[in-house]
């Protein structure tokens, strides 16, 4: 084989690819529109710490402590009181129907028992069929209760408030002091956007060429595999850059996600990740027989990127085997890297382990893809 690299042939393939990309309006629109739509959907719609949850109260004892308690819950923003119920059955029914997420039961003689030091039970029944929906609000309760006690049980009643804890617990929410979900979701979203478009578009672009028979014409000319591969892949690297630019602008302007680290660290990680996705798309193209298969295989690789990478669910919370799979997914390392860089002010040195992992994955995928490519050319 004549393996001399010809710049003019490479440029011709590259140019041809750009023309085709420009003429395929729908795909082109998807490449630019997808990051924007996903950012808006994920950034605005997802909230891991939901507030304003519908709450019912069953008040069997009215007094200053009860009022302070309910006022505290109201002002916390987590609970929206939608009404009162009478008797345990009514509250149960409302929970089952999904009309309320919480039913707060203030028992009879609540205030009196508190003052007497009888430690009465204050029941908060929560609809935990969706635990993440109620966990934030439930966690906020102890603070609300303490506030109400401190406000009401003063003066002669203060012994009933009990002794304060012998130490104070301070939780310092670093890197995301307000606990905003968008600050957590948006950086990782870049990994998802790039995984979705880069893998699929590369795989489809190459398979399309084979499916339409143009690959046969192409390889009957003196063009070399390297010229074809580079010429076909580089336009999509460019697309990845455009998507990332759109993403960064939106992340700053719309979601006010900080970018506290160094751009160099981001740049290295980003390029490795794009390369890995293109190589993966390339690998898929050597397996898929037609465009439909290429699409399906691409989607198949995207699922672990979303579910096992730590994008949606905490990585540390997964069982060992799932973490092992997740470690092999390029998105896992890129998401860690970009969160470190954007939120934690990391520099290149701080993300060495992520860069190394990405490098190894890219190398493995590329080698496998190249080996397979030679076989299928024949």
């Amino acid at each position, binding site marked *: 084989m004549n393996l001399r690299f010809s710049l003019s042939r490479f440029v011709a393939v590259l140019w041809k690819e750009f*023309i*085709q990309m420009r003429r*395929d309006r729908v795909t082109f629109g998807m490449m630019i529109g997808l990051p924007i739509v996903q950012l808006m959907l994920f950034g605005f719609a997802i909230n891991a710490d939901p507030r304003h949850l519908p709450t019912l109260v069953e008040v069997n004892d009215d007094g200053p402590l009860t009022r302070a308690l309910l006022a505290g819950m109201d002002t916390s923003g987590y609970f929206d009181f939608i009404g009162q119920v009478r008797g345990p059955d009514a509250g149960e029914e409302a929970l089952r129907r999904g009309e309320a997420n919480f039913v707060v039961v203030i028992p009879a003689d609540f205030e009196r028992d508190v003052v007497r030091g009888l430690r009465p039970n204050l029941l908060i029944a929560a609809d935990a069929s969706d635990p993440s929906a109620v966990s934030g609000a439930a966690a906020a309760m102890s603070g609300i209760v303490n506030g109400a006690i401190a406000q009401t049980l003063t003066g002669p009643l203060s012994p009933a408030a009990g002794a304060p804890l012998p130490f104070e617990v301070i939780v310092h929410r670093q890197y995301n002091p307000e606990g905003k979900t968008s600050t957590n979701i948006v950086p990782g979203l870049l990994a998802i956007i790039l995984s979705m478009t880069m893998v699929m578009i590369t795989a489809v672009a190459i398979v399309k060429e084979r499916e*339409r028979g*143009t690959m046969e014409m*192409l390889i*009957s*000319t*003196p063009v*070399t595999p390297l010229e074809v591969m580079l010429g076909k892949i580089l336009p999509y690297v460019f697309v990845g850059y455009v998507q990332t630019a759109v993403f960064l602008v939106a992340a700053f302007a719309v979601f006010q996600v900080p970018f506290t680290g160094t751009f160099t660290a981001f740049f290295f990680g980003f390029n490795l990740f794009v390369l890995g996705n293109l190589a993966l798309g390339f690998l898929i193209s050597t397996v898929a027989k037609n465009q439909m298969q290429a699409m399906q295989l691409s989607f198949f690789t995207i699922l672990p990127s979303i579910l096992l990478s730590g994008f949606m669910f905490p990585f540390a919370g997964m069982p060992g085997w799932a973490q092992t799979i997740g470690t092999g997914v390029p998105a896992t390392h890129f998401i860690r890297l970009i969160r470190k860089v954007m939120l934690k002010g990391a520099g290149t040195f701080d993300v060495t382990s992520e860069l190394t992992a990405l490098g190894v994955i890219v190398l493995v995928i590329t080698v496998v893809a190249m080996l397979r490519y030679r076989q299928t050319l024949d």
Partner: protein
Amino acid sequence: MSEERVIDVHGLTKRFGDKTVVDHFDIAVPKGAIYGFLGPNGSGKTTTIRMLCGLLLPDEGEGQCLGFDVRREAGRIKAEVGYMTQKFSLYEDLTIRENLDFVARMYGVKNRKSRVDGALADLRLVDRAGQLAGTLSGGWKQRLALAACLIHDPKLLLLDEPTAGVDPKARRDFWDEIRRLSKVGVTVLVSTHYMDEAIQCDFITYIAYGKKLIDGRATEIPTMVGLTTWRAEGQELVALEEQLKDQPGVDQVARFGSALHVSGTDAAALAATVAKFQSDKRQRWSEVPAGLEEAFIYLMAGARDNFSRDAA
């Protein structure tokens, strides 16, 4: 043979899995010849052509194409070969000019701009140069594909069923062009299903199940097949055709205009059969030299669609 050979390969073999698609195929193509490549579907014509132009690596066999080794110098062969695929394989979403320009760049054609302009003028497509190739009709696509594979002035043309699905007028024009190229020294290897195209070739090779059955000058093919042919003219030919079909010595009965051509490889048995029918005065019988048409029909009838062998 003293003449220069453009293709000279021996024992070319290709297997896909446990299926041998091309089985020890030899061919020697002299410079400037039009070499017809005949055979039923699935007989290995396309695979052979792909091996000759370096798209597939032969499992066995060796030889040269344009003086370059088919195994080791595929890159240099590609530079001087024009290969036209069975299916339209230019980019449907590029314009006519962009396609020609792209192919010219792939071959590193000098004076690319004027070469592409020239090709467009030859095609009489200057006005439509900006039209997308995918919007062209079948005949125009085929002309564009031919122009594209000629853009680098190849010494050898490999055409894989180039006229499939093209109307008769376009096919005639196409063959006029092929003959013109052959006159200026371009060697053409063309696979086809059409008899009227086969008879325009200087040489013919016929393959079935990946094996070469016959190979020679077009004029010698009938002798090689060894057919004797009798011609019957007159009335009631349809009935006669039915009666003749199962007679001894009769291998095929074919209609040629207003006459029947009755052929067989066993000359004596055929003559005896014809003698029985000659008493009927409604037809006149005469022995004629067997032509390429008879030979071709005979070969085609012998090997049905090669894909069906596995089922049989």
